[in-house]
């Protein structure tokens, strides 16, 4: 247990997360703030006093007046003493190279009257740019401890820990602006109503009570009444307060900051921007980088993925050999281990994608992508800020939809959330690769282009085109609730912080395994049970039939395939087979049989279950062969024939119809859940599920009917 709680508060791009990682090391965990889905990063730090501090990283914000969902958390946590993230000490992290703007947030937070201290980060950069800060004078004027550090260079961390340990439990900061003057009567009434004595807290309550969940409906109504009776004008007062604070800060910073050449800060950035955001060159470079990311996801992860696959195959084989044979062993190996392998295999791709995305974000390039793409994206009802979630959608829609929180505008955000799951995610990749390898020859055209690679790229292009078209449709259907903001900071270019990159890779991979893992293992087990068991009468009848054949038949061919035929007939009559048969009429026009039907059902919760299901179905069918590598799976599927016509089931028409189905269908419970949590209503996930399913069915139907001769 921690002795005290410390919250990190600061503007975006101030190196807050780097400092957080430095203070806590790997000793951190990610949870949720109660009731909302914003990531809550907490970790522990040993102080020189021997006490342990729990460090909480709050979302970056320019002011206590929130403009996005993430920013709302800051005041919610600072305002609510019952919130389990409510800190004893606030550490305000400021960028030394831009002190005035950073101190706006400081002065707001200081007026809440909590014990706090100020950290001036990026001291090394400020020095390089010729900015010098008189730390002692600043500390004296603000009335709090001021510590100058460089998180990137790991300088000043020991002093910071000492300062945290020394922070008194009574707030020492000097008052800044007379907050009471903004709305004297309303503030007085609020203070009496809710029993607080801090003027600024009362003013913030007037501004933000709608977002505070700890008030009862009756209290909310009373606050509303106070607002109305005093004709409290939120927007006007926020403006007045901001101006007053800057005025105060000019006085505070007089003689404290000497700037002998902040212009130098931009020389390098300007040169890089001239190339990277060039009207033509910049766009070409962007597409080149996108292509590089794609390529890296596939090529860099192929070796570890093969190793993981091989490892799990060996594990299963070993298990079947050494573990006592029986139902439990089968469940463990063919249900749990198979399901686990299906999840872990995605780790290399997710790690590579998030490493690259975090490098692009860390260097400042992602902000430029947003800048360049905004106008194009706006034509389709999206915003430049939608680019990041949509690129992230190539890996996984779940974190991408969470990252759409940065989009302040409601309509832009909803459209981004609605179309992101259409972008082909890494879970579709194994479906595509398996099906493409079945029907597209591994040949080269024009000497260099691999046909299979082209088919795969085609699937990705189709998914992006679909996302853009659907966004356009939503643009005309949805009514805008508020206006769209785009104002954002373009940070100077910097080298990526490699430690942060590693942290991101680790965090995202872990989140994926834990979140997706639960669903997939459950499905694997259910599927195994459903395909192993069936109505006992039918199973008894099958056993009786084959036992009879075994005892009486002399036909050697029939005897040789006896066990396989028995397993096939059992699968057909198992619960999974029965369900597959029930939906067969509906999927027949798409070119699927009941076995593919089973795969569709199991993929309903997680599409990555497709390959596993095919493996389970075909390995149940061929139970004689104990090894089930992908190559064998591919051969088995390719050899599958329609029992009535004797024609192969997996033709080009079926494969493409299936790929289109998987490209458009929402088969992902985690996405449905995250959309519900992010939009706080069932309306959006239901609309999404319906439109994607209809689109998938229609596209698959058209593809099959067109290609099938």
């Amino acid at each position: 247990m921690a002795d005290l709680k410390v919250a990190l508060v600061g503007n975006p791009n101030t190196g807050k997360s780097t400092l957080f990682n430095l203070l806590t090391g790997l000793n951190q965990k990610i949870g949720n703030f109660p009731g909302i889905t914003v990531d809550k990063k907490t970790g522990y730090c040993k102080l020189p006093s021997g006490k342990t501090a729990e460090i909480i990283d709050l979302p970056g914000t320019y002011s206590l007046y929130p403009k996005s969902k993430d920013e709302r958390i800051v005041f919610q946590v600072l305002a609510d003493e019952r919130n389990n993230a409510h800190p004893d000490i606030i550490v305000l992290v400021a960028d030394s190279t831009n002190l005035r703007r950073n101190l706006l947030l400081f002065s707001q937070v200081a007026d809440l009257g909590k014990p706090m201290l100020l950290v001036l980060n990026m001291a090394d950069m400020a020095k390089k740019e010729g900015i010098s800060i008189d730390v002692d004078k600043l500390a004296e004027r603000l009335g709090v401890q001021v510590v100058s550090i460089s998180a990137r260079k790991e300088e000043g961390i020991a002093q910071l820990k000492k300062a945290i340990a020394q922070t008194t439990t009574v707030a020492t900061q000097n008052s800044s602006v007379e907050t009471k003057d903004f709305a004297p009567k309303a503030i007085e009434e609020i203070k009496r109503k809710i029993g607080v004595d801090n003027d600024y807290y009362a003013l913030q309550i007037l501004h933000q009570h709608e977002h505070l969940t700890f008030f009862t409906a009756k209290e909310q109504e009373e606050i509303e009444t106070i607002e109305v009776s005093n004709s409290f004008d939120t927007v006007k007062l926020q403006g007045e307060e901001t101006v007053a604070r800057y005025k105060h800060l000019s006085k505070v910073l007089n003689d404290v900051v000497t700037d002998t050449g902040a212009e130098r800060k931009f020389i390098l950035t300007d040169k890089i921007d001239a190339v990277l955001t060039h009207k033509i060159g910049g766009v070409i470079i962007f597409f080149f980088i996108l292509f590089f990311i794609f390529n890296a996801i596939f090529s860099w992860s192929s070796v570890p993925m093969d190793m993981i696959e091989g490892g799990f195959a060996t594990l299963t084989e070993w298990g079947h050999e050494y573990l006592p044979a029986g139902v439990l062993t089968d469940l463990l190996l063919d249900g749990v281990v198979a399901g686990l392998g299906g999840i872990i295999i995605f780790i290399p791709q997710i790690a590579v994608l998030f490493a690259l995305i975090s490098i692009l974000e860390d260097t400042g390039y992602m902000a430029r992508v947003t800048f360049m793409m905004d106008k194009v994206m706006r034509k389709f009802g999206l915003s430049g800020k939608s680019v990041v979630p949509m690129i992230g959608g190539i890996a996984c829609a779940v974190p991408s939809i969470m990252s759409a929180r940065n989009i302040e505008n409601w309509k832009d955000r909803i459209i981004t959330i609605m179309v992101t799951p259409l972008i082909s995610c890494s879970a579709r990749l194994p479906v595509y690769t398996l099906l493409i390898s079945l029907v597209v020859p591994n040949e080269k055209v024009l000497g260099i282009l691999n046909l299979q690679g082209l088919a795969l790229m085609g699937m990705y292009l189709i998914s992006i085109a679909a996302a853009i078209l659907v966004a356009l449709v939503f643009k005309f259907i949805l009514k805008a609730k508020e206006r769209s903001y785009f104002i954002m900071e373009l940070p100077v270019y910097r080298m990526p912080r490699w430690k942060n990159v590693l942290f991101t890779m680790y965090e995202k991979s872990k989140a994926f395994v834990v979140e997706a893992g639960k669903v997939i293992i459950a499905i694997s087990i259910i599927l195994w049970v459903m395909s192993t068991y069936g109505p006992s009468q039918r199973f008894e009848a099958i056993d009786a039939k084959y036992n009879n054949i075994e005892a009486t038949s002399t036909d050697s061919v029939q005897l040789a395939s006896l066990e396989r035929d028995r397993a096939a007939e059992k699968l057909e009559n198992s619960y999974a087979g029965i369900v597959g048969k029930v939906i067969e009429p509906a999927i027949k026009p798409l070119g699927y049989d009941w076995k593919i039907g089973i795969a569709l059902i199991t993929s309903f919760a997680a599409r990555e279950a497709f390959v596993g299901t095919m493996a389970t179905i075909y390995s149940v069918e061929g139970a004689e062969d104990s090894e089930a590598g992908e190559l064998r799976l591919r051969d088995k599927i390719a050899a599958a024939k329609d029992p009535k016509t004797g024609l192969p089931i997996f033709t080009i028409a079926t494969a493409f119809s299936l790929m289109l189905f998987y490209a458009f269908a929402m088969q992902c419970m985690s996405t449905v859940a995250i959309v519900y949590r992010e939009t706080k209503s069932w309306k959006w996930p239901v609309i999404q599920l319906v439109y994607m399913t209809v689109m998938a069915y229609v596209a698959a139907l058209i593809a099959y009917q067109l290609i099938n001769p």
Partner: protein
Amino acid sequence: MKLSQLSPGQKATIVSFTDAEMSVKLMEMGCLPGEVVEIERCAPLGCPIAIRVAGYQLCLRKSEAAVIVIQ
């Protein structure tokens, strides 16, 4: 004059804002009356624009730059 009417390379001083809600956001990010702004560059399709103000770079849409009155 409005900020949106300047072309890259031109400088001006912020005088006031024509939109109260946007002005809070702009001021929080450092665009205060009295500050000098410089248009740095336009995005490939002419919008948004990147500006330099109060020691850092901001980008905003032309429609947003239109609420900033300059001289």
